[in-house]
């Protein structure tokens, strides 16, 4: 069961031990996380020369200026530091980012960080609520399914996961919005306040995401129900529901947690689509506008922040796994 966490902390295990195993594993992950975020930014910069067109042309296109004067071009070159070589621009950008300056949007000329921070709370609300709902939903469904395997609740849950796994998030969101909200005349509810929109979008996110997690948790629960500890409890006369919660759930949570951590990226990356459909004023919508005119500083800022958010979230999941699984923190254990 430790495979997931082991995979993540793996090759740092052989180093000299000057920290307790748990702290060492986390420190290693923290280092990896920082490197990954830096590497991501570097990759975006390295791809920059591949983008068709001169940066100045891209800025002019982003601002919809058709016939620029030489003066305008010179001003833009100076303002965005485009005369410097790429590696110097990258270093300037990195230094500025470390000071909390993400540069200026090519389209609007506004600071990227301010725009990002202004829209971040809305996105965090949506993703956070959707995440909580999907985690709870998949827990409940998997427990119900594993409690009555082969019976109708199990079959219903399996049918749901089959269908939900095959419906992309945007299709589900669109159909819910049109057929349920508009079709049933619930449109007024949405225009009345952000709360209803948020709840609906989060429910869609939850329904969409829970399918894979439910399948995995159900399979692991059934596996643990067939193992020794559960058999012993059964021989002692314990109720099946109690066995499920006491003997099957705790060990089954770990692989599930790893799967949840892995698909967090999908949750973050999927937000632009949901925000567009539900007209939710978050980061995703803003980035999509930037994307359609190739507003590079905004895209770079988004990639960095999304990478950091993803890395931070998976770090949290790793910490949870360490806390849940005694084998990972035992000296000499698989995680040590």
């Amino acid at each position, binding site marked *: 069961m430790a*495979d997931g966490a082991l995979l993540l902390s793996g090759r740092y295990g052989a180093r000299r031990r000057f920290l307790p195993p748990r702290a060492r594993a986390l420190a290693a992950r923290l280092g990896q996380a920082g490197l990954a975020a830096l590497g991501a930014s570097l990759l975006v910069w390295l791809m920059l020369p591949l983008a068709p067109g001169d940066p100045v042309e891209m800025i002019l296109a982003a601002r919809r200026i058709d016939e620029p004067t030489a003066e305008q071009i010179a001003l833009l070159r100076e303002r965005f530091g485009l005369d410097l070589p790429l590696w110097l621009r990258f270093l300037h950008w990195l230094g500025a980012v470390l000071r909390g300056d993400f540069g200026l949007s090519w389209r609007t000329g506004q600071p990227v960080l301010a725009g990002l921070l202004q829209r971040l709370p809305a996105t965090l609300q949506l993703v956070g609520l959707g995440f909580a709902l999907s985690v709870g939903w998949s827990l409940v469904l998997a427990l119900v399914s594993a409690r009555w395997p082969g019976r109708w609740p199990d079959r219903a849950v399996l049918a749901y996961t089959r269908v939900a796994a095959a419906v992309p998030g945007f299709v589900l969101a669109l159909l819910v919005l049109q057929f349920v909200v508009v079709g049933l005349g619930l449109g007024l509810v949405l225009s009345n306040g952000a709360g209803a929109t948020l709840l609906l979008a989060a429910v869609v996110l939850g329904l969409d995401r829970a399918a894979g997690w439910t399948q995995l948790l159900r399979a692991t629960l059934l596996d643990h129900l067939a193992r020794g500890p559960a058999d012993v409890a059964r021989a002692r006369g314990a109720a099946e529901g109690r066995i499920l919660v006491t003997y099957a759930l705790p060990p089954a949570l770990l692989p599930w947690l790893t799967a949840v951590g892995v698909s967090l990226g999908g949750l973050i990356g999927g937000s632009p689509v949901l925000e567009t459909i539900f007209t939710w004023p978050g980061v995703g919508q803003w980035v999509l506008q930037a994307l359609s005119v190739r507003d590079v500083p905004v895209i770079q800022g988004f990639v960095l922040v999304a990478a950091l958010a993803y890395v931070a979230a998976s770090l949290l999941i790793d910490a949870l796994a360490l806390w849940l699984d005694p084998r990972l923190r035992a000296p000499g254990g698989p995680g040590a």
Partner: protein
Amino acid sequence: MIGWPRRPALPGGAAPVPGLLAALIAHPAGRRGLVLGVLLAAMALLGPLLAPFHPDLPDYAAALAPPSATHWLGTDSLGRDQLARLLDGARRSLGGAVLVTVAITAIGLAVGTLAALAGGRLETAVMRLVDVVMALPGLIVAFAVLGLLGPGYVNLLVALAAADWAWKARIARACAFEAIRSPAAQVARHLGVPEWRVVLRHVMPQVLWPLMVLATLGLGGQIAAISSFSFLGLGVQVPLAEWGAMLAESRYYFTVAPWLLVAPALCIFASVLASNLLGDALRDLATPEGRS
């Protein structure tokens, strides 16, 4: 958690392809996936021949007509036949997904196998690059690449390939690493078989099979991604048809023509379902426990 599908031991020394087909037909999920997949593939391949109307030519007189004997699935806001656009769009939705999947499988196979064969510093360097790409969620990589290249169908395919090759390369390297050191490969080397032949006969098949299973399982995700990005206006551009783009065009006419949303959504659902069913079946066939 770890452990990827291995090459299945097919019954009775059957030739690989017919044997695999028979095994898939015997598998309940595989059978359903196969039927759906063949239907959808036929739709994408024969679509332009079957289409009753031109998919992109507007006919304003017939705008938003409900389903009828002439227009089986009705017409959209510009009077274009929905069925013709659905058939035409299949090539872009499904064909694009197949193209991306083939590309990332080939890149993953090449990078992973070559890294494992080269060993040493080159292998380490390549795998570190893979680590960095994999540390990012695939959708974010796709957004970044698409943001730099600009919207467009070809750019979208490039972005999706850039987002997903690393995962395949890592698995290919792991499988190749094992296969290079396998007893069969070692015996062949001792018998004087040249190394290129060892790679071709004993390494490639061991790498190809797990990648094929993953490719089938991942196909659904690529279909979903292509239609999602096209829905957002970043992929297939107007006036060309694509299932996601068709949903985007139809959503504002929902109150007068709700049927326009049903067919493209169903097509996307059926394609992803077919890929999931086939992938699950292949995975079952490839793991010893699933073969009973």
